[in-house]
């Protein structure tokens, strides 16, 4: 456990020094402040547009962080051969992967905290009262979603180049959000082979739409009972599976 903590701490220190992180944070802050003027787009409520825009910005920022920092964090260790300095010590490769993931997740959580602060301040300033508590559920689920994306980024960077890993991670994110369409296509498919392939894809790829409760939050609609809990369990399990695959791949990798 101590080994994981040390790797995580080092990864966290390394990533918060990364200039990319600050650029992404700056972009997020500017976009969120701009969202205050985008509120006029709505015919019903500017808070709704601002909330939607803010949550979408957080999702996009998380994705950018997971892709640019997540992919680089392992890839650069391997490319710069700094990984030897760690693995020659009594550090198991699975501990190294979990440590890297934890450090990255901590960076992402800090980033989300900062963006959420800007976002909530902007809404409070515009409306004169704090946003509804459901907005925090949405941010929580976004973080769970991003944990899957970070785990995927680490998994891809275990066996391919950083550029390809970034492309794969983006594709993974997009296909995860289109999972419902795969189900729809499987339902109307007459070809049994294609139908089977689509069903396998449906189960193999995560359904990232489970973590998207923005519409319910923005329009103050009820969230189905149990949705948050099961979505969180699902996200944790999926991230664990990806980390397990990463560990297997990394342990077999000839460094």
């Amino acid at each position, binding site marked *: 456990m101590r080994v994981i903590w040390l790797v995580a701490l080092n990864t966290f220190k390394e990533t918060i020094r990364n200039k990319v992180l600050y650029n992404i944070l700056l972009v997020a802050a500017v976009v969120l402040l701009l969202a205050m003027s985008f509120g*006029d*787009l*709505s*015919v*019903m*409520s500017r808070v*709704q*547009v601002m909330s939607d825009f803010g949550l979408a910005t957080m999702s996009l920022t998380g994705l950018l962080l997971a892709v640019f920092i997540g992919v680089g964090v392992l890839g650069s260790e391997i490319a710069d051969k700094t990984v030897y300095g760690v693995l020659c010590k009594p550090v*198991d*490769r*699975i501990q190294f992967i979990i440590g890297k993931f934890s450090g990255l997740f901590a960076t992402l959580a800090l980033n989300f905290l900062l963006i959420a602060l800007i976002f909530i301040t902007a809404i409070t300033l515009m409306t004169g009262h704090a946003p509804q508590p459901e907005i925090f559920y949405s941010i929580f689920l976004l973080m769970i979603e991003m944990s899957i994306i970070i785990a995927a980024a680490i998994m891809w960077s275990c066996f391919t180049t950083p550029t390809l890993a970034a492309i794969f991670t983006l594709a993974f994110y997009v296909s995860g959000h289109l999972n419902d369409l795969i189900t729809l296509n499987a339902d109307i498919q007459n070809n049994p082979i294609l139908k089977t392939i689509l069903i396998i894809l449906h*189960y193999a790829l995560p*359904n990232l739409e*489970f973590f998207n409760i923005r*519409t*319910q939050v923005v*329009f103050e*609609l*009820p969230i*189905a*009972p*149990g*949705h948050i809990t*099961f*979505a969180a*369990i*699902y996200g944790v*399990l*999926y991230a*664990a*599976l990806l980390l*397990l695959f990463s*560990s*297997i791949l990394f*342990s077999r990798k000839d460094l």
Partner: protein
Amino acid sequence: MKKPVTLIIITIALLACITLTKNRLTAIRGSAPPLESMAYLPGSERVKPFMLGFNTTYAHYLWIRTVIYSGGQFMGDRQFDWLVEMIDMITRLHPHFNEAYEFAGLMIPGMSNNPGAAKVILERGMNVFGKSKWNVPFYLAMVYHRYYQDPDRAAENFAIAAQAPGNHQGRLASLAATFYNNAGRDTEALDILLFLYETSENPEVKRHIEERIERHLEEMAGDGV
């Protein structure tokens, strides 16, 4: 690393748990009430700059959403609160979207109980298409006839529809003449029939209009005009 057997067992257990959770989440989401996805729709003029030139693409996307929305509401509570806004936005983003005007003429007066909105959208369509499409003035004429009991405006729009090229000219001319008659404008009824008889190049249409002119003249003679 742990032994391969342990890894396989952990993987299978994780996969099973993920599948179970996924199915549970799908069931939870399926039992939730359907979302009003069009809960806000900004004005089209404000949206246009954000379309980055993809106005037509967005109009087509919105068209699909409109059809899905209409179907969903038709099978549900039959409240079509957002239909007018959606069609309005489609026709503003893509002013030549003929099907949307047709939909406006057919569905908005009845489904949304808003013939006024249908009239406004169709009149905008008339400005776009002029006399090139028969269906826009035809549906506008139907709105005037059915919801405003205005045979004058209905006849005028049927007359415009009859002037649009196509095989429908004969029947529409006949309809326009009937409505002019109902409005007490017999001379204009004859004028539109004669105009279409002279301008039409389709022999079938000419024959149809000729019959209608003869009937019209008989009626006028009977009335002592």
